[in-house]
């Protein structure tokens, strides 16, 4: 594993292992994917601060085969990247850690909520839901149908009748949705 030595220090790898749901092998594999996205920008040597200073465009990440068909790809990248429209390796790793199979429901639910919360106001209001639904169905439903579905959603999940879903309400539904864990993961 010559790669291991030159790309990350042992401490770095250990830290990543502790902070993500990946093994060191997987981390290196993910790095290879990251590196391949912008070969001229990302150095092979990440032993310094490169892992959280070198950034690549979100557009590149969103174009990865794992994400490119995902209707929420831009939003996912937005949620995981801190700088505007750019992503560091650590954020990249974080993203796939959350989507990995071994990540528990709690952390997945948190990020799912963030992804669906398009305007970032900590609530899924009607416009958030509408945006989600539009992304899901892509002009398949008429405006009335969408409005009807959203009304149904709120009727079902909005326990306090304030016209939007708070995280608690979201979690209340998600924690019991049997398919959430199955579907909210991306294999890399």
């Amino acid at each position, binding site marked *: 594993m010559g790669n291991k030595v030159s790309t990350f220090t042992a401490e770095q790898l250990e830290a*990543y292992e502790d902070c993500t749901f990946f093994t060191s092998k997987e981390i290196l594999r993910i790095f290879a994917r990251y590196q391949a996205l912008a070969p001229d920008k990302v150095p092979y040597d990440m032993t310094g601060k490169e892992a959280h200073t070198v950034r690549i465009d979100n557009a590149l990440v969103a174009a990865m085969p794992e994400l490119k068909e995902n209707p929420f790809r831009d939003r996912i990248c937005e949620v995981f990247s801190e700088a505007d429209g750019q992503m560091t390796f650590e954020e990249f790793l974080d993203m796939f850690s959350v989507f990995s199979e071994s990540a528990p429901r709690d952390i997945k639910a948190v990020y799912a909520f963030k992804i669906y919360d398009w305007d970032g106001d900590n609530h899924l209001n009607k416009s958030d839901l509408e945006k989600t639904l539009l992304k899901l169905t892509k002009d398949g439903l008429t405006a009335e149908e969408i409005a009807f579905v959203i009304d149904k959603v709120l009727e079902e999940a909005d326990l306090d009748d304030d016209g939007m879903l708070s995280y608690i309400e979201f979690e209340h539904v998600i924690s019991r949705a049997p398919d959430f864990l199955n579907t909210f993961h991306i294999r890399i």
Partner: protein
Amino acid sequence: MATAGGSAEILAVPEDSDGGPAPVEASIRRRNTQAYVVSQLPSHRSGSLDYRKESEELARSTLPKRRHRSIAAARADSYNLETSSADSPYCKENPAIVVDGVAAVVDQLCAEDEHSALLPVGTSPEASLHRRPSKMNRKSTIVKFMGLQESEEEPEDVGRLSDELNKKVKSLPVPMSMKKKYRDSVWIDAAIRGTGTKPWEKRWLAIKDSLGALDLWAHHFKEIEGRFGSAVSAYLRFIRWLFFLNLFTFIVSFCVIIVPYWATTYPPSFEEAENPDGPNSTLANSSWLQAQHCTENYYRSLTNNTLSLKIPEQALKVLDFFIGTGWMEKTTMFYGTYHNRTFNHGTKDSYNYNMGLAYLLSMVAIFLVSFILIVTNSSQAVKDAIRSDEEHSSVHFTNSVLCGWDFCINNEKSARDKKRILVQEFKADLTEQSKRMERLSRTGKQKLIRFLIRLIINILILAMLGGCLFLIYYTTNKLLELRKVIRDPLLMLVVQFVPSMTITVLNYIMPVVFDVLVAVEDYLPATSVKVTLVRWVLLRLSSLGVLLVALYYTLQVEDDEAKIFNCPEEGTTSVTRCCSNLMWSTSDQNGTSALSDVKCWETYLGQQFYKLCIVDYAVLFLKTFLVEFPRKFLFDRFKERFSLVAAFGQQFFDLPENVLDIVYSQAISWLGMFFAPLLPAMTLLKVIIIFYLKKLTLVYNYAPPQYAYKASKSNSFFMTILLISFILCTAVVGYMIGNLHPSKSCGPFRVYSRDDYVMWHALTDEISRWPAAASDFFFFFGTPAFFVPAFLVLCLMMYCYWAVAQGYRKMESILREQLKMEGKDKQFLLARVNDIIKYGNLRNPDNAAAFLH
């Protein structure tokens, strides 16, 4: 911490996106947390703050244009902890929402421009800091402070702490850099780093890494998931699981039955065996002689069989291979061959291997372990299914919106299909809603007509099912008679396969008929899928059942008349049973009717399952290469030219059908493995082939399923079907072991001549030979003294669990109500806060009056 409103929290209201001042009430209405005092902080401020003053001031003013600081960060200041300056916002898109055990709290500590900080009422800052250290400013040392505190709490219990903490670190919903800081603070003590935890963990990681390499076929899942979504990948996973189950079955049967048999060469055949009890024990000797006579007769008839067909020897051998007769019948493939063998024959530590006991014990082990595996695997699936069923009505739409997308999908076409399916589903849901409405308004006459239609169709389907089953029964029964007449080898081959073919053909034709009929019945879409499925399962399982019943009647149920004459058993010239076989031929001396007899019913059964297994193999290959690939080819070639091809050519992956196929093959294996010990090996090979073939054909030939199967539902569906067929198979095999007399002409049990002997006695006889205490102990389990109390205790336990479950259910609904009420409370309080802001201080009588008004 003396803030305005005691422990009330402070909310920094965000600006509107246009940057202009936002009306306070409007932004408050957007929040749905508990009571807040609205505050607003001037930009560029660091150090401690006087919140009371601030908030009073802010309550009246409008929002400043530029960024405001998070109160939380400011509060951190009041704890004399380092924070960053407001100019270096530490978090842009990170409303750290953390789930914390009972109370999931929406919590945002980072604030910049559009973001605000909310802390719920009643959460003391200490508590919240303690719980969620990582939400602190990323440049702050509070993380470190926290970590140290934690590690100081339990410095001794390093292993547990580290394990727990590690999980905690991983599960923090914050960026990596924060996690790393938190982790570093946890690990800051070099001593802790050094103590045995790390190496252990490393070893564990290494093990996990190498286990990852063992993760069989993992890379295939990704491809399939990307194209077909998680439900189809769950199907492949199910195949993989069955592969492991079959591997286990194969290993057990191979090690316990086949290897000892192959490893020992004495006696080479049963006729040459000596009576292990010694030539002088008269009773044993008589049964021994009987068995030898029967065996001799049986083997002679095998040779006769072979000679009766006038075809070249090579062709005959091939024919024998496919129907398991002739030379095949004498191989280790079938039950009949096995007999007790001796290790180290002739030396003084020679040891007689009790093949019957080995047979029984291996079956018990296989069924027991399979049962445990299936139950543990299906319990989760069933739980999920029940849960989703319960939830189906209450949060169905929410689930389909929020869990609708399959994040695994990475293929353009499937993404498009998935969207199409989602649209379809939503539309179906909507029509279902309207159908329900319409149904309510239906008149009695319409209802009656619908009821009649359904009744007729159900009768029709039952009749068809009955017809199918009769066909299977008839062909199985006729098989023996036909064997007598047919001389042409090819026709013979066909006839031999008639029952298996009938079952297979029906399994493929009937579902199409069911599909057509269910459309007429006018069910709700979801119901119609279920109804078809039930009919399907019924057909599959009952066809196997009928085959067994037919065989049972042929082989085991006695006619009144005695018809056997030349029985090799001593002193029996006119009996119904000969060597425990009913179908012992009447005239095998001249060889004319040699083909109609069954001289070893166990092997005969084994042959039937062997043939079913072979047909299953054939169907698998034929279906893939002669149907699926050509159809795809035609579709691709002609879809533009002929609309008919375009309409029917596309193949959609049908999940239930494929699952039933593989469960059916598994059921054949379970039923047949007692009589054909190599059947598990065949099934194991078949499962591997199925996996690769299905993957191949999925990738090349199929479009994603038309109906959006849910991964959780399909999982529970697989497991339920498997469990049902397993229980049925166990019942059948158990009955055969416990109630039927083994043949005296073949198999490991042939030396026992007692008339009431059943295979199970091999085990009980062995136990009764043990020391009295041990055997008494085991036999005690079979007595009512054990049985009745055990049954009662089980009933009691079941009742207890049921009662507890009821309690939880009630609790859940109460908690749900409470959640609702709290939400309402929140709104009420929020409205009050709004009013206070509108009308100012309540203590002012004018304002109070206005407020009350």
